[in-house]
C-alpha cells in the first residue's frame, strides 16, 4: 500500500498582526496546515492497520520545508518530496495542483492520495479536486471515517444534510475532515531519527515542467487587494468579583439598548 500525503506549510495565522488593514507576514513562523496533519495521521493509521506500505509526503513551499519536513517524517512518513524551487512560488490553487500532480506521477506508485479538506490559510478546497482530475482518480472529500480493505476504500463523509457512506476502488484520492482523528505529536527521538529518512528536492525540470508553466507566471487568478476588516472595539475588561462584573455588564448592555428587545 503506497500512500502519498500532500501537506502545506502556512504562516501561523494566530500570530499575524494587522497594520493599516494590511496583514504583516514578515517573521511569522510557519506551521503545518491543521487538517494536513490529520491527513498524515490517517495515512500512518492505514499503514499501521495493513502492516505494510510506504508513505511519501509531498510539499510545495519555501526553503523552510528543509527543517519543517522533519515533523511529518517523525509522525510516520517514510520519504519526503520537497518542491521548493523559487519558480514554484506564487502559484494559485490550480497551479499548485499541477505541480503536485507532476510530482506524484514521478513518484509513480500510489494507491491512495490523501489531502486535507482545505488548507489552513487559503481554504479553497480546489487543490484536491484539480489534482484528482489531473491524476484521473476517483475522489472522496470531507472524509471523517476511512477503511481500506481488499483494494477498496469505504469512507463516511460529512455533508451538510447527511453522512454519506461511499465506496471506491484503488487507487483513489481522499480529503479528510479535521474530526477524522487526533494527529500525534512526534516525540523528540522520532524527530531526530527523521533526519535520516530520504528527502528529494525536485524543481520544475525534474517533474517535466518549464519555469514558464509554474508559479506566479502560471497564475489564473489575480488578487487585486487583500485587506483586513476595520474593527473598533471598546476592549473593556470588567473589574471586581463576578457579582460586580455581571452587574456592570448588565448595566452596560442596558445602556447599549440591547437588553429587553
Amino acid at each position, binding site marked *: 500500500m503506497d500512500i502519498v500525503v500532500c501537506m502545506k506549510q502556512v*504562516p501561523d*495565522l*494566530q500570530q*499575524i498582526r*494587522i497594520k493599516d488593514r494590511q*496583514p504583516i507576514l514578515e517573521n511569522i513562523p510557519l506551521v503545518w496546515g491543521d487538517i494536513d496533519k490529520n491527513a498524515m495521521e490517517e495515512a500512518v493509521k492505514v499503514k499501521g492497520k495493513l502492516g505494510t506500505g510506504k508513505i511519501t509526503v509531498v510539499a510545495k513551499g519555501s526553503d523552510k520545508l528543509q527543517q519543517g519536513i522533519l515533523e511529518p517524517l517523525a509522525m510516520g512518513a517514510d520519504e519526503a518530496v520537497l518542491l521548493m524551487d523559487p519558480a514554484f512560488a506564487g502559484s494559485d*490553487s*490550480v497551479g499548485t*495542483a499541477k505541480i503536485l500532480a507532476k510530482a506524484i506521477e514521478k513518484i509513480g506508485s500510489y494507491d491512495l492520495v490523501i489531502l486535507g479538506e482545505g488548507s489552513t*490559510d487559503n*481554504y*479553497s*478546497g*480546489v487543490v484536491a*479536486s*484539480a489534482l484528482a*482530475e489531473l491524476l484521473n482518480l*476517483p*475522489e472522496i*472529500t*470531507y472524509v*471523517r471515517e476511512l477503511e481500506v480493505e481488499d483494494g477498496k476504500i*469505504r469512507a463516511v463523509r460529512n*455533508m*451538510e444534510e*447527511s*453522512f*454519506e*457512506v*461511499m*465506496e*471506491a476502488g484503488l487507487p483513489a484520492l481522499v480529503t479528510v475532515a479535521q*474530526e477524522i482523528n487526533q494527529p500525534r505529536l512526534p516525540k523528540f527521538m522520532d524527530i531526530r531519527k527523521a533526519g535520516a529518512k530520504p528527502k528529494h528536492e525536485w524543481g520544475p525540470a525534474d517533474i517535466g515542467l518549464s519555469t514558464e508553466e509554474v508559479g506566479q507566471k502560471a*497564475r*489564473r*487568478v*489575480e*488578487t*487585486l*487587494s*487583500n*485587506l*483586513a*476588516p476595520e*474593527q473598533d472595539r*471598546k*476592549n*473593556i*475588561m*470588567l473589574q471586581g468579583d*463576578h*457579582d460586580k462584573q*455581571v452587574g*456592570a*455588564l*448588565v448595566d*452596560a*448592555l442596558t445602556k447599549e439598548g*440591547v*437588553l429587553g428587545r
Partner: protein
Amino acid sequence: MSEILVYSYADETAFELISASKGFAGQLGATVSAALLGEGAGAKASDYFAYGADKVYVSEHPALRDFYVGTYAEALKQIAESGDVEFVLIGSSKRGKELAGRVAQKLDAGAITDANAVRAKDGNLEADRYSLGGNTLASQVITTPKKVISVMPKTFELGPKEVRQGEVVKLDLDLKEPPVKVVERREKAGDKVNLEEAEILICVGRGVQAKEDLAMIEELARLLGAEIGCTKTPASDWQWFSEERMVGLSGKKCKPILYVSIGISGQIQHTVGVVDSKIIVTINKDEKAPIFAMTDYGIVGDYAVVVPKLSEKLKSPR
C-alpha cells in the same frame, strides 16, 4: 454573446445566483443559463426561467443519478463547451466547492471558491473571498478565457419570480458511471435555525467541557432572547450541535447586535464568522485569550460560575 452558466446542487442557491446574474448579464452583455442535472431535473425548468434564466440545459443521464463530483464536473464541462459559456457560477456548498476545482481543471480555467461578494467590473466578474484563514478579505479576478466561481449561499437575495419562457436544451451527454458509489446516506436530524439572522447570538466553545452545562447556557439564551451557536469542536467532534449552528470560516457568518462568546479562544477561523457583530461580550477563564482583543466587554472567569450569576442578574428587576 458570452454566457453565464449557473449550477447549484441546492435549487435555492441557483435561484439566488440566477437573480444576481441577470444584473451581471446586463453589464457584461451576456446571457444567463443554468444546468439541470439528474433524475427528474427537467421538471424544474419553469422555476429556473421564472428567476431569470434565458436557457436551461437539461440532462437526466443515468450516470447523474447520485451526485458524484467527477461525473457532474464532466457534465458541466460538456455543457460549457457546447455553448459560449464564459462564467460558471456554482453554489458553494461542500459539493459545489469540490465541483469548482474539478470543473476548472477540465476547462483550463482559474477558480475562486467560497466567494461572498461578486460584481461585474471591466467586462469581468470580480469576487471577494476570505484569505489567510479569515484574517483578510481578498478581491480577485480570473484571467483565463473561462472562469469558475463558487458563491456562498445567501450571498445574493432572491429576485422576483416572474412568468417567463426560456429555451430548454436537452442534452445527450457522454458520461461514464461514477467510480465512486454512495452505499448509504444517513440523514442528519433537521435543525432549521437561521443564525445569520439572529440579533443576539451566544456561541459555545471547547472551553465548555460538560454537556450538562448547556442547560445553564440555554437558560441564559432564553433570558437574552439569543440563538445558540458554537465553534467547530462542539459541532463536528462532539456532535452536541448540528453544523447549522457552527459559526466561522467553514460555518455561518453572523452579524448580530450582541454576540456572547463562552469558552472560546478566538482562533481566526471562528472569529471571522462574528467580526461584524455590533457588541462582543466574552467570558473566558484565560485573560490572555486572543478573543479579548476583539471584545467590547470581557469577563475573566469560569463560565460555570459566571453564566449562572449573569442569568440571576438578568432575572432580577432592573
